[in-house]
């Protein structure tokens, strides 16, 4: 509890004696071991921020050390140990250790980001750099609003690792900096991976149907009809997690109605979902269900099951992100010839050209404000954003990074290659719907499961789905317990 823990954290420990005494006695009885004591004396919400010890003193600012890292201060880095593994980060840590031989780096990789780090935030002793990713991601809006994060602007304005004449900011892919902002100018998050979303398919399967990837919806329906005749479904998706559908649906809405429609949706504007472009795209997807082009049983499949069915050739298309190549590597056949395409639009009257695609940052890295060596955390990120580290990441885990480039001279896997090609084709027509990182509950549970999921299972019509989703969005806009964001 706030009050009692504040007492406990008094430096000399004069207060809160009663409880400590009790513990001491029990310990004397040999019934409570010593490690339990620290646990017992802390309450869930911990105490103030001043019990984390001294912050590291700033080091000397030089050309090689633009962030003025204290070269002997320890640095602690906690990585999410997920689909990308931990090797890339370990390699980057080695460079840090080489640059600062006197500094001790404590590196840990875990899947349990929240369970290991939430108590440390509460105690005011977070590590210096965190890859806040995975199922146990901590809400960054809350962290930022509670002053728990360091503004990364100094990092962005520092010279890049490779070229002192170029700022880090100028070496990044489009959208990365904006994605790191939540409210106003400070940049709280550095997304390290770069994900391409879209419709994933096997070129071989399309070739076997004698078809190209369809650009208009009529062509899409024709391709699906052809596939159906061959006993193949047109589409499947992660039915249990229908918030995978937006990976192709949102950029389609953007293509049909223009960026403003997506921005209005992100901003939770009234009637944003009532835009005709939204209805047109919902109708188009619903037609896939109506005509029987969606793999039977899809609403009961999870992401892995749907990807497996798709890799086995039971369905032609799947909305997904570029991680699918790595995630389903063991079920995708060798001659599959994986490719991604920007989503199919409605027809020639769409506002944006074919090729409009959703691409955005993944793997959010944060530098806690209450850590002891924030400069060290940022320096580690600067190292990771160098060309060499970026290449290392791309070749190891088959994904692009926030570093713009870094694909020359390494062999790209088929999916990655088509992702790079799709980005080139898109040019400036990259959309980046923010609703999925701004309003997690709204996006996943309400729009995804209760709206799109129900519609694609045929239990509600597009008109009903839109009404329902607009209702959820309106409720979220009014809900004072969630933080609201707006496009700048």
């Amino acid at each position, binding site marked *: 509890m706030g009050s009692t823990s504040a007492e406990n954290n008094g430096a000399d420990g004069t207060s809160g004696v009663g409880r400590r005494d009790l513990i001491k006695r029990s310990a004397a009885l040999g019934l409570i071991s010593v490690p339990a004591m620290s646990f017992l004396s802390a309450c869930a919400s911990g105490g103030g921020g001043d019990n984390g010890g001294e912050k590291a003193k700033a080091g000397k600012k030089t050309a090689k050390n633009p962030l003025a890292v204290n070269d002997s201060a320890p640095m602690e880095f906690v990585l999410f140990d997920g689909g990308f593994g931990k090797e890339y980060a370990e390699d980057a840590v080695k460079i840090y250790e080489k640059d600062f031989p006197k500094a001790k780096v404590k590196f840990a990789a875990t899947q349990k980001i929240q369970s290991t780090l939430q108590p440390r935030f509460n105690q005011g002793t977070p590590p210096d750099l965190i890859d806040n990713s995975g199922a146990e991601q901590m809400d960054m809006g809350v962290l930022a609003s*509670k002053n728990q994060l360091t503004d990364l602007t100094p990092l962005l304005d520092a010279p890049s690792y490779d070229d002192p004449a170029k700022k880090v900011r100028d070496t990044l892919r489009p959208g990365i900096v904006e994605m790191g902002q939540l409210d106003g100018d400070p940049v709280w998050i550095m997304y390290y991976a770069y994900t391409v979303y879209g419709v994933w398919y096997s070129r071989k399967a399309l070739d076997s149907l004698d078809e190209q990837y369809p650009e208009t919806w009529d062509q899409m329906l024709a391709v699906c009809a052809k596939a159906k005749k061959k006993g193949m479904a047109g589409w499947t998706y992660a039915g*249990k997690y229908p918030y995978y559908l937006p990976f192709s649906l949102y950029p389609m809405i953007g293509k049909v109605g223009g960026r403003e429609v997506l921005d209005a949706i992100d901003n939770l504007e009234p009637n944003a979902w009532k835009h005709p472009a939204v209805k047109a795209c919902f109708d188009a997807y619903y037609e896939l269900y109506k005509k029987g082009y969606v793999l039977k*049983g899809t609403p*009961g*499949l999870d992401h892995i*099951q749907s990807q497996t*069915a798709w890799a086995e050739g039971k369905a032609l298309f799947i909305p997904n992100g570029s991680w699918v190549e790595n995630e389903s590597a063991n079920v995708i056949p060798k001659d599959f010839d994986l490719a991604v395409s920007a989503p199919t639009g409605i027809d020639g009257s769409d506002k944006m050209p074919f090729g409009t695609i959703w691409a955005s940052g993944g793997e959010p890295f944060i530098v806690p404000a209450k850590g002891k060596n924030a400069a060290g955390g940022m320096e580690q990120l600067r190292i990771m954003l160098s060309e060499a580290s970026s290449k290392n990441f791309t070749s190891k885990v088959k994904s692009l990074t926030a570093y713009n480039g870094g694909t020359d001279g390494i062999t790209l896997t088929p999916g990655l290659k088509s992702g790079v090609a799709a980005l080139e084709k898109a040019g400036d027509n990259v959309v980046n719907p923010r609703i999925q990182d701004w309003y997690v509950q709204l996006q996943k549970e309400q729009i995804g499961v*209760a709206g799109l*999921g129900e519609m694609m299972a045929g239990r509600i019509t597009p008109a009903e789905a839109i009404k329902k989703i607009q209702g959820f969005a309106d409720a979220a806009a009014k809900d004072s317990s969630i933080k609201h964001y707006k496009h700048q």
Partner: protein
Amino acid sequence: MQHGKYRFIVGFLAVPLGLYALFVVWPFIQSIYYSFTDWTGLSPEFKMVGLDNYRRMLDDEIFWKSLQHSLMFAVVLPLVTLGLALFFAFMINVGGRRRRGGPVVSGVRGSSFYKIVYFFPQVLSIAIVALLFAFAYNPDSGAINSLLRGIGLDGLQPLWLGDPDLALWCVMAVLVWSMVGFFVVLFSAGMASIPTDLYEAALLDGAGRATTFFRITLPLLWDTVQSGWVYMGILALGAESFAVVQIMTTGPGGPDYSTTVLVLYVYQKAFRDGQAAYATTIGVALLIVTLAFAAVVMRLGRRERLEY
């Protein structure tokens, strides 16, 4: 002397009570306290907001849905699980035909084998059970639909966990499957302590299996059934239901909120949405529901105790 005796007793009680107070009562008090704050769970700063969280909870549609499902779990699951377990235990221990030269009361043929088989699921962790069933319920290539296709029921291919009308029942079936074995063993142990002469007397009077069960076994086993009921209800309200819903269901908690339960909602609010204070508010509601459940079961189940 008297004084010394009390000190002796207190000496023994202090430590366990102290541990209980620290690890059980203290966290409860903390949670109740936090439910009056706006604590996010991600920073040590918060302020008191009075009853705001409770007002919000009463207007929260998802909360009421979760409550409804949790209550259903607490009523249906013990009923079905204990009913099945009683039946199995009875057949294993008492329900067999009388064999020439054998004991008066015995189980059906192969009962010792069944006893072990029923206990199998209990050995598996609930997470594994949930995953196994998530595969079995796969509408495309799962065991259940494959079986249906295999026997020619191609037209009957339900979506199981993907169908809002079926999903909750699918989840409950898994919990019944995984819990029933434990109660079979528990009731078997209870039945073993019922004196055989009672059964002999009943048999001499010409009682059939059903009569024996309702007139002798059940009344003499009542205490065990009652504690089993409370135990099962608490599992259904708490950890077990969370694990299966979180691992198996759409969303999780869906489709369309059809499987969300209070514990899942607490978890989502605390660890997904960064609203720890609101989560503790729901936790307080869950605490009240659990206590009320235990109280109701204890009161309804109050019977005269038979000494034997």
